[in-house]
């Protein structure tokens, strides 16, 4: 049975919830079971945001994660908090433009990408989460890039569909980084 437990975390406004939903939606399109649990408790009042996402071949038990196979951290407080959640051999993907330290764990696979810098060079900071998602998709294979694109079409309102080619470009930059 394949089940991928993922935690996405960063500042409010970095597209953390959107990143989690996009992966969940792509999972649905691959006929997998998915759950998405956003943080709504006191921790989000401090400006940080996180969500727990599970994509599985079987019905999902608890949607809440006490550990994860994948952590995507978009700022330093998120990495400080969630690095310890990773299972041994787990995958850490972080925005090295904003996280000013190396991962402490040696028993995980860590990938730092200067996503915010790359997105800024592309002219749209909102692509930073997509760049990191590219790496996440590449390293985990949790969903395919094709499902991700179909998911984008479902999630984005029609008036934003003109952004999809650039979103996919950002995804590929992350995948190839």
């Amino acid at each position: 049975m394949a089940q991928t437990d993922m935690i996405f975390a960063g500042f409010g406004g970095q597209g953390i919830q959107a990143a989690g939903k996009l992966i969940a939606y792509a999972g649905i399109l691959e006929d997998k079971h998915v759950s998405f649990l956003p943080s709504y408790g006191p921790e989000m009042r401090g400006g940080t945001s996180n969500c727990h996402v599970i994509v599985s071949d079987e019905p999902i038990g608890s949607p809440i994660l006490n550990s994860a196979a994948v952590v995507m951290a978009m700022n330093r407080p998120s990495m400080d908090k969630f690095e310890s959640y990773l299972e041994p051999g787990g995958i850490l993907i972080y925005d090295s433009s904003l996280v000013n330290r190396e991962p402490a764990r040696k028993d995980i696979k860590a990938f730092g990408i200067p996503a915010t810098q790359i997105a800024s060079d592309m002219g749209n900071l909102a692509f930073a989460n997509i760049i990191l998602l590219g790496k996440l998709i590449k390293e985990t294979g949790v969903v395919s890039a094709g499902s991700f694109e179909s998911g984008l079409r479902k999630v984005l309102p029609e008036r934003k569909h003109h952004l999809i080619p650039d979103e996919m470009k950002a995804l590929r930059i992350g995948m190839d980084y």
Partner: protein
Amino acid sequence: MGEKILMKGNEVIAEAALRAGCRHYFGYPITPQTEIAHYFAKKMPQYGGTFIQAESEVAAMNMVYGAASAGARVMTSSSSPGISLKQEAISYAACAELPAVIVNIMRAGPGLGGILAAQSDYFQATKGGGHGDYRMVVLAPSSVQELYELVVEAFNIADRYRTLCMIMGDGMLGQMMEAVEFKDKEDIYQADKSWAVTGTEMKRDHNIITSIYIDPEVLEKHNLKLQEKYRKIAENETRVEAYNCDGADVIVAAYGTVARIIKNVIKTAEKEGIKVGLIRPITLWPFPAAAFEKYAEVPQAFLTVEMSSGQMVEDVRLAVNGKRPVHFLGRMGGMIPTQKEILEKIREILK
């Protein structure tokens, strides 16, 4: 069936209610269920219905009383402290035999408490949060798909028996997103509502909706009628899921989101050679005592896991009736029991 879409529990509640023919919603915002009101505010006008953000929870529940008296499919929703405020009108509506749906997306108490998930309103919902000898049907879904199905069912049960029906979820279920697949058309129970106060047009006697019966003999008779109705509901509407119970070493009793955690525990325990069963009450009232009676002598012991100090465990003990020990594990304050601590408790029980 349509396509699978990703939706938040709270939004599914409102969508399900609209599909079930609910055209009147009265509520007052409170975390973690406010998205229900958001969704109705946006959608209800498209259905020609009524959305009112009332001045208080007390007012909202009394508006429900009014709309239900006129025969409408109506609902309100809130979270724990707000549900406490509704109790007076709930008792009145129960006495007046008004069909309506009340949603409680529970948060941690007592008092204003916190905004995170809890199950500490079990007593309030199943043992009568308001005064008097009344009951209401309490449905406890554990997934977003089941939330949809049970909200539709709640309206049908409410109309079939002229009763109040509560959906009991917790903050986690309200906030989480899962895939949901809506039916093309809902099965809607068409009730005879000739009792409703809709105007006589001078063609019939007045219908009276009331909760006051000053004459004790008349009031006792009314109470006996209510009790007979509750007996019928218990006979026909009890719902439960028994999972992995045959030959189980330990049977866990849990409802709602906690039951999901137990399903993970079952898989992990299996690897250690421990067989864990799950009895998941889907109706908290009527309580599925028969399922516990059926399996009472199967396991070495029962374990009830709740996000409370131990409320449903009392009903489990009554149902098991001393045939096996009934242990308890609970977390409070918005803390969620972990698989690890539940598994440790099971190992300890089996020692």
